[in-house]
Each structure stands twice: as C-alpha cells, then as structure tokens.
C-alpha cells in the first residue's frame, strides 16, 4: 500500500532479523522431517517409513486421540471463559480496574509454569485446599483425584491458554459499534437476541482465530501434561519425550513430532478457511 508508513522493501529489510530468528526453527523442522524418514532409530541413515509404520499402534492412536480431545475441550472451555472476560474488560472504564484485570488474566503467562503447577497441587492435590474443604463439609469421604489424571491436565491447559483467547476477542469486542447493538434493539431485539444475532456473528472471525491459536498451543503442550498429568496422561508431547528419553527412539519421536505438526497445521488452515468463509459472507 502506498499510504503505509513503510514501503515493502523497507518492511522487508526491518523484518530480516525476525526471519533470521525463525530460520533455525524451519531448519529444525526439516531436520526432524529427515530424521523421521531415517532407516535407523538413533541416527540419520538411509530412507525408510518404518518410523511412521511403527507408530501405527493402539498406544500411539490413544495418545493422538487424547491430545485432540483434551486440546479441543480446553479450547472450547477457554473460549467460553474468555468471551465474558473480554466483555468485562471492555466495559471497565477506570484505567486502574482495567489494568488490574489485564494483569490477572496475563498472570499465567508471566508466572513460571512450575510455580503454577505447585499452585495447582496446593489447591487440587489429595490433601489440597479443595479436598480439605469438601471433606470438612462432609460432602466427600475420600479425596477426589483431580491431579495426575486427565482432569488435572485439562484444568492446566485451560488456564495456560486462557490469556491467548482473551486478547484477540477483546479487540474484536472493542470494534463492535454501539450503534449496531442499538439498531438491533430498536428493531425489537432483546439483549439475548442482540448477542445471538449481531454480537456473536461480528465476533466470529476473532473467535475462530482465538480458537486456532489456543488449539495449536494446547495440542503441542508438553510441560502441563507432564507436571499435572505425570506419565499417566500421555499427550503427544509427553509420548514424544518418552520415546527419546528412556527409549532412544529418535526417528520414532521425529515421526510423532511430524504428525503433531501436520495435524496442528491442518487444523489452523481449516480454521483460516472457516474465517474466510464467514467473513466472505459478510463482505460478499
């Protein structure tokens, strides 16, 4: 565009460091791709699709299914929590209140993950706060096992991905003009109908964008399932690590990594396509 502040050449020049920073990642991806096609488990030698063929086990299938399921539910729940938070953030008029809420939402990104995991254990562990309260109230006899299983991992994923969902939605909520909502109201729409017929459709591109970011983040999660699920919750990140660390199956880990990357990419392309489809409907 001629009226932007940087010409394309200038922008390209300034973006060069970013490209240099991203470059090792691409190289690593290519390296992993090559390793996954290696004939040997421990080093790159020859070509073979054995690594992929060896992954076609019920165990790995369960891991893929678990990853997709947990990432999906964590994304949906995070989005459902993010929408009201985004609205709350846009309705706060006092800068202090707005900044405080922003920091609270961002806290999981600022805090070290180990600290967070420790917090979860204090709260949800067998002798943690929640179980103690429930037991003292006589609601339960034996502690609920909320950690080191899928529930714990799900909670952790929701918490870590929530900030990623909130901020894209906040800017979309800000972009909705008050007059659109008032127009719907003058035509006879109740608050609920306005939300359903006007607000949500206008938020749709942002919701899909936030969902794809959250999903990619959750599907590739490694630390959360390891810390809050232990070995028992074999999300793909954990499964890949186990292949490397006790088993030294480097080519298998590389193949599993490639599958994870391709799956995530596919879902992101799918959601980008959905965004285009829905915005095209609005634009023509």
């Amino acid at each position, binding site marked *: 565009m001629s009226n932007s502040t940087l010409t394309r050449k200038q922008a390209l020049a300034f973006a060069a460091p970013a490209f240099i920073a991203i470059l090792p990642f691409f190289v690593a991806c290519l390296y992993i791709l090559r390793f996954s096609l290696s004939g040997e488990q421990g080093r790159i030698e020859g070509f073979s699709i054995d690594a992929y063929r060896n992954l076609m086990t019920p165990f790995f299938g369960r891991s893929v299914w678990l990853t997709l399921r947990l990432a999906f539910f964590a994304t949906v729940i995070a989005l459902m929590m993010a929408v009201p938070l985004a609205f709350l953030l846009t309705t706060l008029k006092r800068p202090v209140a707005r900044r405080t809420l922003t920091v609270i939402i961002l806290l999981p990104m600022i805090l070290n993950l180990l600290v967070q995991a420790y917090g979860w254990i204090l709260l949800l562990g067998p002798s943690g706060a929640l179980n103690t309260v429930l037991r003292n109230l006589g609601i339960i006899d034996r502690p609920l096992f909320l950690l080191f299983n899928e529930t714990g991992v799900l909670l952790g994923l929701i918490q870590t991905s929530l900030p990623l969902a909130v901020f894209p939605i906040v800017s979309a909520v800000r972009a909705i*003009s008050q*007059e*659109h909502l*008032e*127009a*719907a*109201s*003058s*035509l*006879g*729409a*109740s608050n609920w*109908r306005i939300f359903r*017929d*006007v607000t949500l*459709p*206008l938020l*749709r591109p942002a919701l899909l964008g936030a969902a794809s970011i959250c999903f990619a983040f959750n599907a590739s999660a490694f630390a959360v399932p390891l810390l809050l699920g232990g070995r028992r919750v074999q999300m793909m990140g954990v499964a890949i690590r186990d292949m490397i660390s006790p088993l030294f199956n480097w080519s298998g880990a590389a193949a599993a990594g490639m599958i994870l990357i391709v799956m995530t990419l596919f879902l992101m392309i799918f959601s980008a396509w959905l965004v285009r489809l829905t915005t095209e*409907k*609005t*634009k*023509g």
Partner: protein
Amino acid sequence: MSDTHLHIDGITKRFGDVTALDNIDLRVERGAFVCLLGPSGCGKTTLLRIIAGFEKASQGRMMLDGTDITNLAPHKRGFGMVFQSLALFPHMSVAQNIAYGLKLRKASKAEQRDRVEELLTLIELPQIADRPVSALSGGQRQRVAIARALAIRPQLFLLDEPLSALDAKLRDSMQIELRRLQQKFGVTTVLVTHDQTEAMMLADELVVLNDGHIQQAAPPSTVYQSPANPFVADFIGAANLMPATASAAGTLIVLGQDTGLPVPHHPGSTLRAAVRAENIQLHSVNGSGQGMAQVEFSRNLGPVTEWLVSAQGQEIRVRGVTGFGAAPQVGDQVNLALDAGRISVFTT
C-alpha cells in the same frame, strides 16, 4: 384539532454535573415531521436517544398516545431508528437487514419477503435484495437503513443526523426522498440535525435547541420570520444583530436611523434588532459624501451578491439580487435601508 402522538413532559437529563437537557416540554402531533435543530452539544441527540430509550431521563416522563413509556425498554417501543453511522448489519444481506425487525416479530417468510420487496420498490432499489451491505454505495446504504427502520411499521420514526455523511448533491436528493417516504407512510418523525437548511426543508415543526433548552418550537417559516430570541435569529439564517433603541414617538431606532417600526417599549430603552441580510438594501452615496456605512467586502455568488459593510463599528451582512447596474464596491460609502416589516426586536 390537535392530536398529540408523543408528549415529552418535563424531561431533564444530567450527566454528572452537566445538565444536558433542562425540563424539556414538547408535544409532537401525529404524522408530523419534527426537526430538532441546534449547535453541537445543545442536547438534541440526547433528547432523541431518550425518546428511543437508549438514555434514561433524570427527571420527567414521556407519553406515547397517553401511555407512559418513560421506563419501557427500547426493544419494546417499536420505534424505527436511523443512526448517524447507519449501523447496517455487515453480516447480513440487504434483504436480511430490512427483514430483521419482521423476523423478530415472527412474521412469516412470505410476509417478510413481500415487505422487503415493497420497501425496496419504494426506495427505488428493487434489484439489490441479495447484495451484501458492503457492496452498496453511500446513498444506497442510506436508503436501506431508512427501509429497515420503516419495515417494522414504526410508531415513531427517529433519525440521528442520517444525511450528514453524504455529499451536498446526494444529501439534497435524499432530503426530498426522505420527505416523500415520510408523507407516504404518514409516520410521526423526529429528525436530529445541525444543518438549518435541511431542517427548514424537512420539518413541519422546527425545534431549536441550545444549552439544553428549547429556544423555539414552531413551523420553519415562523421560526425564520419571527425568531423568538436573538439566539434563534442568529442561528437560523444568520441575522444581523444590532443595538437599537425606542424613540420618543415609540418607533425603533437602529444605527441612528428611525425605521418607523412602532415598538411597545419605553423611549430610550436598550433593545436589539435582528435583520436578515436579504432585508437590507444598500444605496450608494454619490460623489464624496459621507454614508452610514462603508463596504468592506463584496462577493458575487451568481444570482445574489453579498456585502459586508461596517457601520458604527459593527459588521453587517447584506445580500441582494445581483443587478445589471453598478454594484457598490469595496471602499464605497453606502446608506442602509432596513425593511421595517422584517425586523425582529428583542429586549435581551
């Protein structure tokens, strides 16, 4: 016979310490086209938003056909509104936009389609039903927004500076269009504008607002010819406001000249006279004689010519039909003849 449709009864609106509207009383006749006119910040938009239900009045009530609607939610009022930004729904087609109010009223599909078709024909855009809103030109959007508001057969038709974003030529044709549609539907209409030409052209009743008060509410010709106070005189048609006084004979003296207009004030009382530019004639003073005023500026606008003259330290605007003869030029000495029948006299 008067038939009050909307009665605004002592409406006051305060925002914190600021009083935006102060005890507004207004009766709107059924089927009338009312324009709320005033400078920005006069409270006209706030009044419209209170009528629509988007703002709550701090005091006072509002009656529609004798029913108190002060606390009725906006979506239950059934008023069609056209917004300054038009606020067409970008994710809906033209037809979906127009039919949205009907859909909420649970009208059948056939009914919705017929009504959309009827309205699109009325706004002379029959082929655009399936187009997305973004594919429309400014004037088309304007019409669709009007059609959407009228589709629900509104009790009141409210418009918030709907034409301000259009260029002058389009605005002119939309004003005619708007007036035509309003008369066709016979819907009671309240339009907010800061453009006095637009208000004069559209309104049956002109409500001039300033500082949260109604300055004058009357038909446009009345407002123009007998402004209620100096503000209205100045705001509508930019009249010249001049210091004046009453003579011993009870006539009005302006710029030291007896106009012969009888006034009911005590001789010598301080008055102000408002005279419009077109109600003053210039007479050139021949030779090197001294006149009442000196021409400071003149411009020929084609059919009319405007002059700024200074008399007794006051700048006075004069407008006249461009003649064939020699017009007074800058620097000329002139005498002013005020049309006594067109002078408004104020004591404040």
